[in-house]
């Protein structure tokens, strides 16, 4: 994608909105410069691009996203990673062959993509668990000089920790980073990373009250900006676990009931069975009875109005 390609996108949107070049350029650049930018990569100023985008009523971020994910024909990198992260493979078959050969411009993103490819291959028994773990160790070694601030790297380390949870040093530094990090940047990979770490922490020795609280709060804060049903479901589990740690039974029951109802919707078959077993083991509950009790309470609340048929 060249800089002049971004200008071609500006022009596509201009045409879609029936705006003349003259009207678009007025007060920003000359028409001659506008057309020159579409064929030459030299001397293109980002502020000019931003001003033209603003005049068209779009943000520069939307334009970049449009160019990367829509116009170009989205190769599906983020979508693939997301599908592997949530372990949902309905539409992954079309993406997987592309991801095997895909080379991302960014070195760290390339490693992250490869890690998710390996994880998927492990899930579908294309490689063994040992091979997957070997890759994770190799990846950690390749990137040991790089900081957690590179979001692809922190995400790789979160995936590594899911299989090597005893690596306390990596865990501690990653926890510290996630709690303090600014999630305005690298949002998606931070979301994946925190989701992985919290999943690791539920009902294991790695969870201290403080760590679970801080990381859950961070996760929930991120979901305020971009609420997402699957991660929202997980946040209920993480919150429930925190309530268990602090013996807050009232909030625990409500949160678990909601979690279970989401689980019934979103997860099926063997994965559902595994999750139910996890729920019963960690919380020692009958989820159906808990849900019935919670539902009865809800129907009696002021939110629900019962009318005659």
């Amino acid at each position, binding site marked *: 994608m060249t800089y002049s390609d971004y200008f071609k996108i500006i022009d596509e949107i201009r045409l879609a909105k029936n705006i003349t070049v003259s009207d678009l350029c007025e007060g920003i650049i000359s028409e001659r410069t506008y057309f020159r930018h579409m064929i030459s990569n030299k001397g293109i100023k980002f502020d000019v691009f931003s001003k033209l985008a603003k005049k068209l009523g779009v943000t520069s971020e939307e334009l970049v996203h449009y160019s990367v994910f829509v116009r170009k024909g989205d190769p599906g990198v983020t979508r693939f990673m997301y599908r592997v992260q949530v372990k949902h493979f309905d539409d992954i078959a079309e993406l997987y062959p592309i991801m095997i050969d895909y080379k991302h411009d960014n070195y760290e993103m390339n490693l992250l993509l490869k890690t998710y490819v390996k994880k998927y291959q492990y899930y579908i028994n294309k490689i063994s668990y040992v091979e997957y773990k070997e890759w994770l160790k190799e990846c950690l070694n390749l990137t040991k000089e790089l900081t957690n601030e590179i979001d692809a790297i922190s995400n790789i380390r979160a995936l590594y920790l899911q299989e090597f949870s005893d690596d306390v040093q990596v865990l501690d530094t990653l926890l510290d980073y996630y709690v303090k990090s600014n999630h305005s940047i690298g*949002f998606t990979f931070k979301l994946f990373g925190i989701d992985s770490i919290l999943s690791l922490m539920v009902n294991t020795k790695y969870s201290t009250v403080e760590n679970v609280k801080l990381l859950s709060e961070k996760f929930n804060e991120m979901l305020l900006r971009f609420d997402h049903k699957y991660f929202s479901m997980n946040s209920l589990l993480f919150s429930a676990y925190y309530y268990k740690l602090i013996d807050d039974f009232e909030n625990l029951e409500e949160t678990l009931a909601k979690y279970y109802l989401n689980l019934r919707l979103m997860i099926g078959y063997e994965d559902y069975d595994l999750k139910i077993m996890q729920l019963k083991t960690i919380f020692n509950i009958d989820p159906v009875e808990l849900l019935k009790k919670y539902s009865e309470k809800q129907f009696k609340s002021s939110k629900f*109005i019962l009318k005659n048929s």
Partner: protein
Amino acid sequence: MRRTMMNYNSKRDDTRFIIDYLDQIRAERKISIKDFTDKVMSVRNYTRLLNKEAAISFEALSLFLEKLSVPLFDFGGYLRNSKIYENLDIVNFVNTAGQEDYETAYKEYYTPIKDKLENPPIMKKLLPISVAMMEYKLNMSTKYESIDKIKSVLQLSSIISSKVLFSEDLDALGFYMLICNDEAKTLIGEYLYKVLFNKKTKILTGTVELSTIQVHLNAIMALTRRETIPNRDHKKIYRIFKSFLEYDKKAKMAIWDYLVFRDMKDYNMKCNIKDDLITYHYISSVISIRDSNKISDDIILNQNDIDVYYDLLKDEEFARESMYERLIKS
């Protein structure tokens, strides 16, 4: 040293925040300006950028982002998120109005945003539209005054004739449908139906899957909330609904799925259709929502609805099925 700058009139430029955000990332990562600018430009030129005496080029921006290992699309997301955090008052107002909780929007969020109404830094369409809706709902203006204000901002004919659907327009349509007449709803519904199935219109947004789900939601809302629904639209409505189920099964994104099930349940009632699965999903989507404050409307049920819900709760086979499996098959 490559030429990466030009002099410009800083009074005309309001995009200079880009360099500020770039520098913020540099500072957060504790990279010195000297190291940051090495092989890109001189420290002096970088300082000129920071002082807004010059503008950054695409080339320089790309080189800096490469040094930070930040892909361009991620930087774009960072700009957007940063703007949101700087204008949380506007975001909170629009979101609260969007949940149709106009009283809270007015009491808690209206005063801080009043000064920004003339030239909002973000949500240039959504803010005036949500204010107009609030004024109507709180009897501060008549319905027609609010409709006029909304129409002048929305420019519906321009949206529905465009080959690109912008995310703010999509949100704005959602607001407009709460107040417009059947004719407008039909126009919007037909347009969104084409967006979904014609594929000639591209959706321009930061989150394609989320926006696609929103298109489904708005399309169902537009077509089912009319006073009179022609029989010929029945197939269309169900096609959109099935498409929503199949799409969200893959994306698992829709936290406001209860709106879809609510509209489908109401539509079924109008057509005297009994559908237990829709009833169950409506109730469970309300009960399971993480933040119940997001649902501002009352949930009206009868005893039969509640019985259906409890019956399906007991169904172990149903519990184990994959997302919307039974609904999609039915």
